[in-house]
């Protein structure tokens, strides 16, 4: 039961952090938005930051119960004095700043973006990768930041597809595609590096439960990537001709991407709760 709660609260935390940080990063990188899209971005950031903070507290409470549940000195110091406490501080601090400064446009939205990076850094200071070495932590940070940016950009493009005319939307999509080339490449490089670190392929029985769930995650992530390639090669060119059918198909494809990214996050919650790289 506690494991199910742990996985559920982690999924909620991942959703809050990725959506909030992702929208903050994408809003900064994609630049000037229409008033409607800006308002929607602030709304997503505020809701996501609140979800991230509440989930972070819930994750800590579940962890305390899994450690014995007595709020004793050893349990509390095990949390406060370790990377677990640092991760929670980054989640609560980053979430609070994102909530308070979601409206800020100072320095082109640098404050929400910095708060988003603090939220994402929480996954780089604690967990499987962080317990290896600094390089693995850095790879985890790059991986989660790029994935969050991707989700955030789609969450911004969806309202933009309704609010702005097709020509302007096509321009925004072009900008997104240009940035996505480099960011998705980083996402893949960091992801492959993490797999090579966390899965010991030298073992004859390397396909452990951890590797099996990881393979499922890679499969879902690959389908998001395949969908993104389809969007870029087949649907985006139609937008330039102000083709209404291409726009409708692109919206459906982006909604599917959001659902599939949700699947990736759910698989990650299962991976980090139920399995271990060396079990």
């Amino acid at each position, binding site marked *: 039961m506690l494991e199910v709660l742990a996985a559920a609260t982690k999924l909620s935390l991942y959703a809050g952090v990725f959506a909030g940080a992702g929208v903050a990063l994408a809003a900064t990188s994609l630049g000037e938005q229409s008033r409607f899209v800006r308002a929607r971005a602030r709304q997503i950031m505020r809701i996501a930051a609140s979800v991230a903070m509440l989930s972070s507290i819930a994750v800590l409470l579940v962890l305390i119960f899994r450690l014995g549940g007595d709020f004793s000195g050893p349990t509390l110091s095990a949390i406060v004095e370790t990377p677990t406490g640092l991760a929670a501080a980054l989640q609560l601090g980053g979430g609070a700043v994102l909530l308070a400064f979601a409206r800020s446009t100072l320095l082109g939205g640098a404050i929400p973006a910095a708060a988003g990076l603090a939220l994402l850094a929480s996954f780089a200071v604690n967990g499987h990768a962080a317990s290896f070495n600094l390089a693995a932590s850095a790879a985890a940070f790059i991986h989660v930041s790029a994935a969050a940016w991707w989700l955030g950009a789609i969450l911004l493009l969806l309202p933009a597809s309704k609010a702005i005319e097709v020509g302007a939307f096509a321009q925004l999509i072009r900008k997104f595609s240009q940035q996505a080339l480099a960011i998705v490449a980083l996402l893949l490089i960091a992801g492959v590096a993490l797999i090579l670190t966390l*899965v010991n392929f030298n073992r004859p029985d390397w396909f452990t439960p951890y590797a099996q769930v990881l393979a499922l995650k890679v499969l879902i992530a690959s389908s998001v990537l395949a969908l993104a390639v389809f969007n870029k090669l087949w649907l985006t060119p139609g937008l330039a001709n102000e083709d209404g059918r291409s726009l409708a198909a692109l919206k459906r494809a982006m909604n599917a991407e959001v659902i599939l990214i949700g699947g990736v996050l759910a698989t990650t919650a299962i991976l980090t709760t139920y399995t271990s790289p060396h079990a």
Partner: protein
Amino acid sequence: MTRYFRSLLIGAAMALAATPALAHSTVKNTVPASGSILPASPGEITINFNEAARITSIILIAPGQPERKLDVMPSGSSTSFMVHDPKLATGRNEIKWKALSKDGHPIEGSIIIVIKPGAVPSSPPPAKNHDHH
């Protein structure tokens, strides 16, 4: 561009692969070993982990007695933890522990020690320590 990313990937993989693949801490051994049969309660019980962990809870379940919390030293992060004078009762004693692993995951396990007055001390093969996450 492709060559640049390929070099980056190889470099990242080499840097990361320099560390052996271990994430959760696991128990290396305990003294006495789990499954031991002893003539009297040992003076101390030691739990050795493969890497630093923090024990947050350790309780003794002994026959005919209510669950009892045991004091463990040190209270912070360590690879080795000791319980002094656990006062194990005659019969089957289970020492259940919970800890926070280096990677932030909760881990738990138990040590079974049977106290049988007059018995010749014996311990099973080392693999009998029970720990999981």
